[in-house]
């Protein structure tokens, strides 16, 4: 009895050590956001929270349209996530569980596109957006991102393990067509996987920087990350303000993740019991 308790204690200690390493830079970001730039440059630097958070945040609000860019980011992240979840899981289900002429070649192409360095296509993609008149709009951020190789690949690997072939076979015997098999059999079984993909997509869309920086040409209508980069000046850097901005930008993500993380733990348990 005590042996297992001791083991559990050791386990938690090991996990907590990892947590410390994980959280330290985040903690320090928060420390910097609550102090002045001057405090940060001190040697040794301040390692505890200061009283300056609100004045730093006030300067963020003074310098950028925080609420406007937050709204844009929320719209982009939500739309992208919903579309990706649907398109990717449907394609992944097809690749994971069916063989059809060309499926190997098509999946190969998908992987190849994933290997192309993203920086390569930034400029030509911008020219396309100019020509179809989407420059400066959130469409240019949402539509190209609404299905991606990464998500299809991940869901395919996940579905291979998470959806038993027997279940699909049974549904087919019951007369369910392809889309019904996806909707009624696969979707309920892959909820934890979807939760993960949803979070990753949401975070990716939230933190995306290089592409919005180029395509959102109207500086008064940008996403949060682009607005933050406007804070980061080249020669006079007000670090504590930048850090306050960074903190504001990640806070909503942590909340989203906390909510989702609870959701999919419960789902996973149910799935396991039912399966």
């Amino acid at each position, binding site marked *: 009895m005590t042996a297992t308790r001791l083991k559990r204690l050791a386990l938690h200690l090991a996990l907590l050590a990892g947590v410390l390493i994980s959280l330290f830079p985040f903690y320090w970001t928060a420390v910097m956001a609550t102090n002045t730039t*001057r405090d940060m440059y001190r*040697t040794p630097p301040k390692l505890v929270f200061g009283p300056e958070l609100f004045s730093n945040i006030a300067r963020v609000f003074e310098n950028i349209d925080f609420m406007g860019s937050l709204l844009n980011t929320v719209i982009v992240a939500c739309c992208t996530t919903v579309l990706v979840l649907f398109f990717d899981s449907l394609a992944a289900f097809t690749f994971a569980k069916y063989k059809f002429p060309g499926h190997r070649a098509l999946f190969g192409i998908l992987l190849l596109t994933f290997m192309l360095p993203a920086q390569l296509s930034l400029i030509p993609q911008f020219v396309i957006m100019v020509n*179809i*008149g989407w*420059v400066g709009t959130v469409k240019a951020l949402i539509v190209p991102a609404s299905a991606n190789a990464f998500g299809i690949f991940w869901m395919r690997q996940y579905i291979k393990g998470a959806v038993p072939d027997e279940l699909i076979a049974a549904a087919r015997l019951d007369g369910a067509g392809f889309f019904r098999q996806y909707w009624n059999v696969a979707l309920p079984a892959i909820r934890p996987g979807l939760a993960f993909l949803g979070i990753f997509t949401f975070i990716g869309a939230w933190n995306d920087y290089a592409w919005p*920086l180029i395509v959102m040409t109207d500086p*008064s209508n940008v996403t949060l990350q682009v607005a933050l980069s*406007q804070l980061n000046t*080249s*020669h006079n850097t007000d670090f504590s303000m930048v850090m306050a901005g960074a903190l504001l930008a990640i806070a909503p993500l942590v909340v989203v993740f906390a909510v989702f993380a609870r959701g999919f733990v419960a789902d996973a348990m149910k799935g396991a019991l039912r399966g």
Partner: protein
Amino acid sequence: MELSRRRLLQVALFSAGSAALAACGSGSGSDAKELTLWYWPAGLSDKVVADAVKHFTQTKLKPSVIGGDFKQKLVTTLTGRRFVPDITGVKGEDIASLLVQADRFIDLNTLGADKLASQFVEWKWKQGSTKDGKLIGFPIDIGPTAMYYRPADFEKAGLPSKPEDVAAAMSTWDDYYAAGVKMKQANTGASMVMDIPTIFQMVIGQGTKRFIDENGKFIGDQDHIRNAWDLAIKPIQLGIAAPQAGEQDQFTAASRGKSPSLFGAAWRGQDLKNALPDDTGKWRVAAMPGGPSNYGGSFLALPKECRNPQLAFQIITWLLSPENQARGFTDAALFPSSPAAYTLPALTAPDPYFGGQKTVEVFGDAAQKIPVSYEAPSDAAVSAPFFDEVLSVWAKGKNPDTAWTDAVSKAKEIAERQGVN
């Protein structure tokens, strides 16, 4: 034939069907209700810009502060030919590559800029002009350089500490290095030189030639570069250079009395104030060994797409009047390109960070003596290996002769690739 085929290919590649035609609509029409102005953070005084918005009631001036890689974004927008700003900032290091594309911009001389030429420092005006005399970039600020140093650490080593005395005692690089050796012998724990690549940069800027000449010939293997190289390497060989470190590290070391001198333009003072706010009164500015050079600075330009060039030009000249340039100095450490501003109170006020010194005496003097040199568009690309190698000598102790040979052969390769011979 050749050209049309290429055009065809470009069109085929760029356009997504017939939508391509839609692209060429904007930018025309001269009765614009608004004018857009692009600049980067601290590229202009935000207060001056805000006043300009109020001042020009005949149009709606829409200023935009663009973060990140400014040039990349400007070039992309120029290529896309949509949402092109009516007025745009151009950084000093980017002007050379845009001068080659002069037909994408309005020649400001056609709007009457030539009458204003005498109000600005001459070399800066030339820097913004093409070889055939078109003015593309209207001067915002300049980057006259000087030596920033800590008088207390100089004194401790038995060196002069007043700006005039320092400038007189260290008027050449050799004098400066001799002072460095003296400092080393005094055993105060200080290494005179904070940063090596900066010295390489500064010495090149003190000359009239860079890496490529006006005929597009690579001259980076010639004496003027070799001289700069040798001068940059020398403090390492003399053992008077601080160990290589990142910028913040260097500042920290300096505030602990470990490396009491550095070189930089006028805006560098702002970096010091930000990085070492507690060092008020501990720094001074003196004329640089070997004479002044320029580092940084910027321009305003009007792209061809500008919807109202006359008005845009009025806005530019208003933004950059001597009075407003002086405000730019106060708000954003932009050193005026117009000497008329040097006598205004904003510049002549004593600066407590520099012990009450009137730094304009040093920088204003330097500003008018900066040598003009031709900077080719591919200068940055071709010079990169020299900076990489000089850093290797400093950080890794690479043999200087091997490093030089490597830098030259690498630079030649890049020159060939860039179409320089």
